[in-house]
Every structure is written in C-alpha cells, then in structure tokens.
C-alpha cells in the first residue's frame, strides 16, 4: 500500500530532529537496512537544515514543507522552503562550496552520495525544493525478509 505524508513546520532548529524522526519512522516500515535509514536521516537533516540556515537565514518564522511518498521499492522525500533561493545551483552543489564561512559545504555532497537521486529546484527570492529518492536494495531486502 502506498503512503504519502506531508509535514509542515516552522524554521526552528529543533524541528530538524522532528523531520528526521518522521522520515526514520516511515523508512522503518519499509525493507530498508539500518544503514539505509541512517543515510536517509543524514540527507533529510541536511536538506531541512539548509532551509533554516540558508533559505531563511536562521529566522525561525519561515515555513518548511516535508513531503514523503513511500512505495514498494523506494521512498521519495521533498523538502521545500519559501526562502531566498539559490543563485547558482551548479556552484552550490560543488563539494566544499558554501556561502557561509563557518559551514563545510558538505550538505549537497551527503544528499548526493547517500541517496539514489537528488533534484534541486530553486528560484531566487522565491524558495528552494530539494527532492531526494532512496531505493531499497532488493538483494538486501530479500535477505532481511528471509530472516523474519
């Protein structure tokens, strides 16, 4: 049975943990390995943190929308803000690139390496949507099922 959920919350730092929790709970209903779930949590944590830190420049009153679609073989997660947007997406996605000096520029690197697909959509002054997809490794899934 497919399952779609939508979570809206304000850009308070505490809510990053909430987003991770919800995604981990959804993923736990699926045949993901523990290490898959950890990777998914990191990717979602990066995407939501970016909305707060970059999209809303740490203002706590911005709206963040997390949507997740579960299907048999994958989970798709989108994270959207209505913040300042990204000027140059290509540049933003380069490893070690950051517009904030104290940050590492590893957010997009982690999203890319931990997920099977990453899409970034952004308009300056309007906001950013990041879409993350992670597939179930079917060889692993079979392994887990046969252990039940």
């Amino acid at each position, binding site marked *: 049975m497919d399952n779609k959920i939508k979570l809206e919350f304000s850009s308070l*730092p505490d809510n990053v*943990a909430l987003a991770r929790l919800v995604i981990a709970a959804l993923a736990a209903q699926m045949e993901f390995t523990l290490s898959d779930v950890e990777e998914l949590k*990191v990717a979602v944590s990066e995407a939501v943190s970016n909305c707060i830190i970059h999209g809303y420049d740490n203002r706590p009153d911005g709206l963040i929308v997390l949507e997740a679609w579960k299907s048999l073989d994958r989970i798709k997660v989108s994270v959207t803000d209505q913040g300042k947007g990204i000027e140059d997406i290509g540049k933003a996605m380069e490893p070690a690139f950051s517009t904030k000096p104290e940050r590492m520029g*590893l957010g997009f690197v982690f999203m890319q390496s931990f997920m099977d697909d990453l899409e970034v959509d952004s308009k300056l002054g309007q906001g950013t949507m990041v879409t993350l997809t992670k597939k179930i490794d079917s060889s692993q899934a079979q392994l887990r099922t046969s252990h039940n």
Partner: protein
Amino acid sequence: MGLEKKYDRDTLVIKVTGELDLVVADEFRRVVDPELERRQVKNLVINLNGVSFIDSSGLGVILGRYKKLLQTGGKIWIAEPRPPVRKILELSGFPRIMPFFDSEKQALEAVREA
C-alpha cells in the same frame, strides 16, 4: 541531549550526548569556545560515545574548533565514535587530520605522550 565538560590537567574533555545536528553544534560552540580562549586550551578531547547521529553541521563545528586550535598549535582528539557516526567522520576525511581512539582513556594517554 547535552554536553559535559571536564579537565584532565590542561586537556579539555567534552562529552557529547544526543544527535549532533545544528542545535547541538550551536550549543557546542557556546560551551567550548569560551573555554578554549579563557583557559588557553591546547588539547581538546571530544568523546562521541553518546552521539547517535551526526550531519554536516556537527562536522562543521568540530572542524571549526580544529581550525581555531591550529592557530595556537592545539589539537583535537576524537574518542569512542560509534559506527554510524564514525562512518560519516571517515567519509569526510577526519581521521587524516585528527586521531581517533576507542576509549577516552587511550585518547588522554596519547595526549600526555604527545
């Protein structure tokens, strides 16, 4: 969730508990930076045993302290990272710039011998 600080001679030991994301990273900065400055700390041992999660905000705060200490000839020593956290630290090349130890005791011994 939280941070515990203590001193072993001149070495500052910070034990982190919880998920090292932007919230805890901020707390880390607020707790550790005044100590580094006031007490002229040279060696910072970070015990990650209680950390179940880390993301790039967590990595960033550790790397930031690393850079600060570098200016004064200081170092960071990582103790007891659990497997998922260790994996992220390794992926990001941390073991190349700071040593990892399986116990805080070993880390403190290494500091003394350094």
